[in-house]
């Protein structure tokens, strides 16, 4: 079976920033693939590349960009528009950017269906109400008549999810869908997404900087750093036997109750994420990496560690006895 989404060697340059530098990932039907990394590492730009929604002036190159077996890298705006909101949908990092403040929730939700499917209004309204109920909104009728600013952050995010599902997409890209929400609401929304995915067989590309979310919802994880996927593995493997120095560093920074005692220092990575300019070579992490060697300034090999575990680093996997699982 071919992957639902396959990105191979994606490169995006925006002005003097190399935002994505050869990222590859693939997502199967019914799978949740988490893209994790710190601010500015290229997560959103990767997602926007798939949707054909890159900012003005961005230049994209790929060896392959396949959706449901079909190459879409050469698609023009009209063809992409037909896919977006229909077979692939996206929940954006900032919900207000995709909800129009001037229209009611109901008219925005039904518009998607009318545009793509020509569904009659009454039927589209029924579908919208059904989906709002589905995402745990108790008074769908009331909400359909309200404007986005009349909703709490949690409700708005639920509306976004419901709207993304209007046309039964095969692929859902969710960019930090819960970052702005309280932890209680976050848990509810993530649970909801997991349930919907199970019922509908959606493929979800979930972007987050939160390793807790990754651990709890992902089937597979790709860790991005400075525009590259530096490590990718099934979730259990990544947490049990991380290999890339950046992944290890990132995991050690997160306070885990019971693992690091109060007042004992957390692990940390010195320095900050660099801004990478076009033409940069070598490993983007080398200035912060405790294990860096002169070889890190050269071409970095992509190492296949077996069982779907890969990393981009000159070091030997299992170098300290922690073999890849």
């Amino acid at each position, binding site marked *: 079976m071919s992957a639902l989404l396959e990105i191979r060697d994606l490169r995006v340059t925006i002005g003097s920033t190399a935002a994505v530098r050869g990222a590859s990932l693939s997502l199967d039907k019914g799978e949740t693939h988490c893209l994790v990394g710190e601010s500015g590492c290229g997560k959103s730009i990767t997602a926007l590349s798939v949707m054909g929604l890159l900012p003005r002036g961005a230049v994209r190159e790929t060896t392959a960009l396949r959706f449901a077996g079909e190459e879409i890298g050469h698609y023009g705006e009209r063809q992409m528009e037909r896919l977006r909101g229909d077979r692939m949908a996206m929940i954006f990092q900032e919900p207000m950017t995709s909800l129009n403040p001037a229209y009611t929730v109901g008219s925005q939700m039904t518009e998607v269906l009318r545009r793509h499917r020509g569904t009659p209004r009454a039927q589209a309204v029924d579908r919208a109400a059904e989906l709002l109920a589905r995402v745990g909104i108790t008074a769908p009728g009331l909400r359909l008549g309200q404007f986005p600013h009349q909703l709490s952050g949690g409700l708005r995010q639920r509306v976004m999810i419901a709207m993304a599902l209007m046309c039964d997409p095969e692929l859902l890209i969710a960019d930090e869908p819960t970052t702005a929400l309280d932890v209680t609401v976050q848990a509810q929304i993530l649970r909801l997404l997991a349930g919907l995915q199970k019922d509908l067989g959606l493929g979800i590309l979930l972007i987050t900087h939160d390793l807790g979310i990754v651990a709890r919802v992902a089937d597979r994880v790709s860790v991005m750093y400075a525009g590259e996927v530096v490590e990718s593995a099934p979730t259990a493997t990544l947490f049990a036997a991380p290999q890339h120095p950046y992944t290890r560093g*990132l995991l050690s920074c997160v306070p885990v109750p019971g693992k690091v005692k109060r007042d004992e220092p957390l692990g*940390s990575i010195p320095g900050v994420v660099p801004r990478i300019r076009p033409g940069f070579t070598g490993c983007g992490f080398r200035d912060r990496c405790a294990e860096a060697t002169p070889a890190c300034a050269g071409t970095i090999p992509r190492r296949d560690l077996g069982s779907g575990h890969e990393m981009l680093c000159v070091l030997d996997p299992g170098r300290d006895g922690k073999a890849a699982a």
Partner: protein
Amino acid sequence: MSATAAIEVRGLRREFRVRQGIFAAPKRVIAVDDVSFSVPPGSVLGVVGESGCGKSTLARLILGLLPPTAGEVLVDGQRLAQMDRRARARLIQPVFQDPFASLNPKRRVRDIVAMPLIAQGSIGRAEVERRVGEALERVGLSSDQGARFPAQLSGGQRQRVAIARALVLRPRIVVCDEPTSALDVSVQAQILNLLAELRRDLGLTYLFISHNLAVVEHIASEVAVMYLGRIVERAESERLFAAPRHPYTRALLASVLTPEPGLGVPDVGLGDVMPDPANIPPGCRFHPRCPVAVAQCSAESPRPATDAAGLVECHLARHAA
């Protein structure tokens, strides 16, 4: 109580009048509602709770940046309301969430850090320079970075500047309002380690506000859980995280997604009703969301019950262990 509390608040209350629409009559929002507690010197009180529950308002009341509607704040045994601004600055200092918003973009780092010293009006130039250098070094900034402007620093470096500015008067107490929430995890860890080290070395007391429970568990010795303006549970950190007594605390803890694969996302059981500070429900203010509420909960406000294990405000938890 033996030693004087670093912070003591008694019956603290703060109301705001807000309009929810142009034609709507103004509504009264009770952001902090009759809150009392004390923080022993050298300890860290973590304050947690959802957005809008009153954490920042509490911080601003304790810093004297906002006058209370009722009640009082004592810092190191002295009434805040009667304290001179300069004396207050020598005792208690803030570190806020967004270092970019709280640092003057037109001033160099070393001038920003010098401001509290200069505002004292009695410290000579050589002494100012010496103490600025000392504060910058303490937070891990070089003198080269001291000559830069905030825009030329990373988020983590800017938060170090804010911490240096808070420390330059050698205060006893620092109020941290979401000090790492705007930072990446690798930088968050650097700042948390720095704050812990400073507390140990300088014997500081922190009021530490965060919506990130794992961060609070890591740094706080005691934790207060706020819900719609009230502290609904307070206990020593270990106790609170091991055996939460309030149903809201239990829901909060259940929502924390630790990086442990295979556990899935728990059902926190709160439904979709969101708390609204302008419409505080009668009875227990948590009852519309509470998964274990009984009839009494919607009729009668629970009173805070204090015992050896801490404080809890819930009809059902009062007699629990």
